């Protein structure tokens, strides 16, 4: 974890003075080192018995007064291990990709500095031993996101996008912090000596104490997650974040940072299961986001925007998984999504690079022949995200849908199911518009189209392979697999006995979902059939989505146009303009806020009250006092003599009468 930090520091300080090769090499190496180390620790964890898989390294006490103690420490357990592997592994591939993509850019060194810094912050987030360390990393990745989105800050739009990302994130963080405070307040009276108040181990141990406040706490924490992981209503920054360089979109906004929210929820699973209400809210928001974003993605013309909304939608799935108690599946989807989404983004970057930075799909087409590797890997990614067996996406998405169904949330299942179909559809649309048909680009762009260099295509291939095999680590039971992923994460998500009973009496369905043992037990009974049915259904549905997309956009691109112009005109406009959400926020929040700060706070209070009243008055007091005392400074010697005599007389009189 320190390696990327060193890389960031060196690159940042030396910046221009070292040649580009060195900077890039250094950055990639540091991440590579991190990855290797992550693998090492992972293997070490596998060697340990399941219950004890926990390594921690507490460096020092960060804050401590009285019983309030927070340590500066890092911990590695199965969950962090997975996240660490994802972050460093995919991060490493993206670093290599960036060597090629950013080769012609002036800010080459600066880019790698920020990238390394990001990896460092993300590692802090996932390896943090307690909630505050997580938050440090949380803020750190927010900062890096801002830096990287507005990387080409000479364009006003890019800077604005960066600001938007950070500010929206901040709003979420506000809720997050309130949640943290609530935890602290509720937990403090029950702590033993020397127990770090926000340490995850401690929190898990004392979870029962927090039960009454659990709903409030979890909802607040979830607000933070909506900001970071782009759920409704705080997803608005993610599409705008596409203003940043494509590797940034791949790393931060597909594979890692946006999954921080999901990670946090999974980390705090013991708290979330105490509050069925919060879980339900999480699930509903997740499902709603999934389908909402899918609908928007159907009409976007910018290749990266489609992927951005796709990310929001997929994040919705992950959140949905956590909401129904399938935390392991949420994380599983994090992993598979990291693979295929990074692949898709990097692939789109390859396309954009080839098209001289043109991103509008309406000007693309027929790139299949000119960019063979990109095309092939991109197709793999598309199949993965559409949930086609046996690629990775099928396993993770299908498991999520299954768990949703099994927890009794049939409506949510339907929502997720429909969204999955849409996903397949718009992805196919993207593929067809980009790679098939006639090339619609202007002449000078067309002449420059070329396949990308090896530094860019190699990671694409690796990710494609991972997208294919990534799902195989957790073939669910009903298919004869060992559900290894779920087993691996069991110690993290196992619920203590007390919670079992409380949840059982409270809400039967949620308890069923929260109990991973229960899920395994159920497969032996009638539910296996249902699993098969659902799995096949989603597989076929995904294929259908792909097929429809193919037909519509390959054969009759005209169909889309006529649909648009006729009855679907209104619908199209709404979707294309993203439901006017940004405009809504602008009207409701931004403009009143601006007016408030300018007229009330600035003019009235600052200029009027403070400047005028307080400051001037105190100056006047001094002036008045001065003018009074000036009388005694007249330079007249006789006056001075006279005053001395008076004083002497008074003194003598006083003495003679008090003696």
């Amino acid at each position, binding site marked *: 974890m320190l390696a990327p930090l060193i890389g960031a520091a060196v690159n940042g300080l030396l910046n221009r003075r070292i040649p580009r090769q060195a900077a890039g090499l250094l950055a990639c190496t540091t991440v590579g080192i991190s990855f290797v180390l992550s693998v090492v620790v992972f293997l070490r964890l596998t060697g340990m018995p399941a219950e004890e898989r926990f390594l921690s390294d507490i460096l020092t006490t960060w804050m401590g007064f009285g019983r309030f103690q927070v340590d500066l420490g890092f911990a590695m357990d199965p969950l962090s291990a997975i996240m660490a592997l994802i972050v460093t592994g995919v991060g490493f591939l993206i670093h290599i990709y960036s060597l090629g993509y950013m080769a012609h850019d002036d800010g080459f060194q600066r880019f790698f500095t920020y990238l390394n810094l990001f990896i460092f912050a993300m590692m802090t987030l996932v390896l943090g031993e307690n909630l505050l360390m997580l938050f440090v990393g949380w803020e750190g990745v927010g900062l890096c996101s801002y830096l990287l989105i507005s990387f080409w800050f000479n364009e006003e739009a890019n800077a604005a996008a960066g600001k938007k990302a950070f500010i929206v994130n901040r709003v979420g963080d506000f809720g997050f912090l309130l949640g943290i405070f609530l935890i602290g307040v509720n937990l403090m009276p029950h702590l033993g000596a020397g127990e770090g108040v926000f340490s995850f181990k401690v929190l898990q141990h004392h979870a029962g104490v927090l039960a009454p406040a659990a709903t409030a706490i979890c909802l607040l924490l979830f607000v933070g997650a909506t900001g970071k992981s782009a759920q409704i209503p705080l997803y608005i920054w993610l599409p705008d974040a596409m203003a940043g360089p494509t590797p940034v979109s791949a790393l931060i906004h597909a594979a890692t940072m946006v999954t921080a929210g999901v990670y946090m929820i999974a980390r705090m699973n013991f708290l979330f299961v105490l509050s069925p209400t919060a879980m339900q809210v999480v699930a509903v928001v997740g499902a709603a986001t999934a389908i909402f974003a899918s609908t928007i993605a159907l009409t976007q013309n910018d290749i990266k925007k489609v992927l951005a909304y796709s990310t929001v939608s997929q994040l919705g799935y992950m959140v949905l998984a956590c909401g129904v108690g399938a935390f392991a599946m949420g994380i599983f989807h994090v992993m598979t999504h990291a693979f295929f989404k990074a692949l898709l983004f990097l692939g789109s970057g390859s396309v954009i690079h080839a098209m001289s930075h043109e991103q509008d799909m309406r000007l693309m087409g027929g790139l299949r022949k000119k960019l063979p590797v990109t095309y092939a890997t991109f197709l793999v990614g598309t199949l993965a995200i559409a949930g086609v067996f046996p690629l990775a996406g099928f396993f993770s998405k299908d498991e999520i849908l299954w768990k949703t169904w099994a927890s009794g949330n049939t409506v949510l299942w339907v929502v997720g199911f429909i969204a999955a179909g849409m996903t397949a559809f718009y992805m196919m649309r993207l593929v067809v518009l980009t790679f098939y048909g006639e090339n619609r680009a202007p002449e000078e762009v067309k002449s420059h189209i070329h396949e990308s260099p090896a530094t860019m295509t190699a990671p694409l291939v690796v990710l494609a392979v991972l997208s294919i095999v990534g799902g195989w680590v957790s073939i669910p039971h009903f298919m004869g697999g060992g559900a290894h992923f779920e087993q691996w994460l069991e110690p993290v998500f196992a619920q203590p006995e007390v919670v079992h009973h409380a949840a059982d009496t409270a809400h039967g369905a949620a308890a069923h979902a929260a109990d991973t043992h229960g899920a395994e037990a159920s497969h032996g009974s009638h539910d296996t059939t249902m699993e098969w049915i659902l799995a096949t259904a989603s597989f076929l549905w995904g294929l259908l989505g792909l097929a429809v997309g193919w037909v519509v956009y390959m054969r009759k691109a005209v169909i889309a146009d006529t649909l648009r112009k006729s009855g679907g005109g209104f619908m199209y406009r709404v979707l294309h303009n993203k439901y006017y959400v940004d405009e809504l926020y602008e009207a409701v929040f931004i403009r009143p806020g601006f007016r408030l700060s300018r007229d009330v706070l600035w003019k009235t209070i600052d200029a009027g009250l403070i400047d005028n009243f307080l400051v001037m008055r105190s100056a006047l007091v001094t002036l008045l006092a001065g003018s009074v005392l*000036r009388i005694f*400074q*007249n*330079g*007249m*010697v*006789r006056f001075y*003599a*006279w005053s001395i*005599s008076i004083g002497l007389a008074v003194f003598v009189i006083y003495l003679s009468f008090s003696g």
Partner: protein
Amino acid sequence: MEITLTHYLVLAAALFLTGMTGFIIRRNAIVMLMCVELMLCSVNIVFAAFSRVHGDAGGHVFVLMNFAVAAAEAAIGLALLVEIFRRRRTVNVDDLKALME
């Protein structure tokens, strides 16, 4: 009539008051200095008188010290005054207001 301590004290008081009044009223700096000398003189008389009454030689010693101080002060005062006159052609104290606010 017997010359008692009281006579001496009254004399000293009269001298002192005369000196002080003169110091306040007169405008000529040289005259002011002379009034200061008067005041110092009256103090001398008081010390000498009390010294005689209590048989304590300390009073006499202080009188001698007083002489020295008066002499020094007169010297300095006059030197300053001469210098002021050279610059401003006046010894009228009312005209020396340069330190006024």
